[in-house]
């Protein structure tokens, strides 16, 4: 089995509640659901071109989670020289669960928290599938 790490990287999305939801789902995956395989990484390090961070991204598996269609997470990962193995937008989950809209940036509210639960479980399952598929 591959010993590569999985870096789940959300957008920093300072102005959007959906980005807050993406970040919270990331924490749920890397800290609670799959802590032994997954880590996160500051997206800002990729924007500044930090060598160590860009290297980590290139040598491992990357999941990009974006809070809007500007796709900052995916694009910054790509700028570091890596195509993410998995890239999702929070809106893709919302399209299926539109009753679960995150409310505000600082507090995503009840619906937002449910969305985080849905997202993180689906993400974990998807990452597991990817790891089992081998590489």
């Amino acid at each position, binding site marked *: 089995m591959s010993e590569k790490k999985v870096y789940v990287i959300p957008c920093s999305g300072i102005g*959007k509640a959906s980005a807050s939801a993406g970040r919270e789902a990331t924490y749920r995956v890397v800290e609670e659901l799959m802590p032994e395989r997954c880590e996160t990484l500051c997206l800002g390090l990729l924007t500044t071109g930090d060598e160590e961070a860009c290297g980590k991204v290139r040598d491992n598996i990357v999941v990009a989670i974006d809070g*809007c*269609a500007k796709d900052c997470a995916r694009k910054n990962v790509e700028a570091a020289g890596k195509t993410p193995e998995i890239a999702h*937008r929070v*809106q893709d989950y919302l*399209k299926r669960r*539109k009753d679960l*809209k995150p409310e505000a940036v600082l507090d995503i509210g009840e619906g937002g928290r449910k969305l985080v639960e849905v997202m993180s479980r689906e993400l974990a399952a998807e990452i597991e599938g990817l790891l089992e598929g081998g590489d």
Partner: protein
Amino acid sequence: MSEKRKARETEKSSQKKEIPGGGKWVVLPCNGLDKEAGALAREMALHITKGGGNLICPVLYGRNPSRYECELAGGPLLVIDGCKTGCASKLARERGLKIARRLNVREMLKEMGIKGGKAPVPDPDNLSRLISSLQGLEREWEEKEVEPSPGLFTSPVELREFMMEKFVFKVPISGYFFNENDCWARVEGTRARLGVSDYVQQSASDMVFFEPPAVGTEIDIFDEAGSLESTKTALDIISPVSGKVVAINDELVEAPELINQDPYVRGWAVELELADFKGDSELLMDCDRYFSYLKDKVEREFDEKYGR
């Protein structure tokens, strides 16, 4: 023209034989156990599929989406909702299905001046009146696929912009007409494409649904021409012009975020064959006027936002 059409129709009827269900409607109705309107929706679905086509059970489909893959590929999807809750439409949207036509029994009843009952028992009179109003539905889908205008709306669109805080608002330089609901019509010849402005896109934030009107619908000026839902709100596209829907942007149904990425070109929603553009245009703003109108409006909004 008529020959062309005939050719197209023969082409279609030959295609028809090869698709399961005979190319008739694939009907997804309300399951009909809550109110009379729902029960009527169910009865109508049974009636429509009597002569062919396929019926999708909403409960089974909800539990097992792959069950109906084959049927759904067999023809245009007709969704029949009982009431405003629109469970059948919601189910279709959740599964990413393309809705070709939608009926809402409560609205149909309302138009006929009938009040539906609370018990889920279909009144036979109501049912027969509904069914007789369906005449023409059989043929309707055959006429559905109108080509989006070939050769039109292909020229590049130049934009000008102004900045407020860090937000940049863009407006085309020419060729577009706006109403005060911030919806645009791009007019070329007798056709117009409709959409919403960059301002709508920015204030509503990320779009997650586009619900188009049915092809063939006659739209009056200021009528709804489809609706949008974003992560923040829901809104109608309020048509700046009158005409008949000849095409919808299928790409937008799949990817409503095109409105955020490119509100004036790839984010178009609906194409109309114009009915009275000269009359309509009296009530519209051209690009220059919309630019200054919008600038004023945005300034006012920011002042209000910060209580100044």
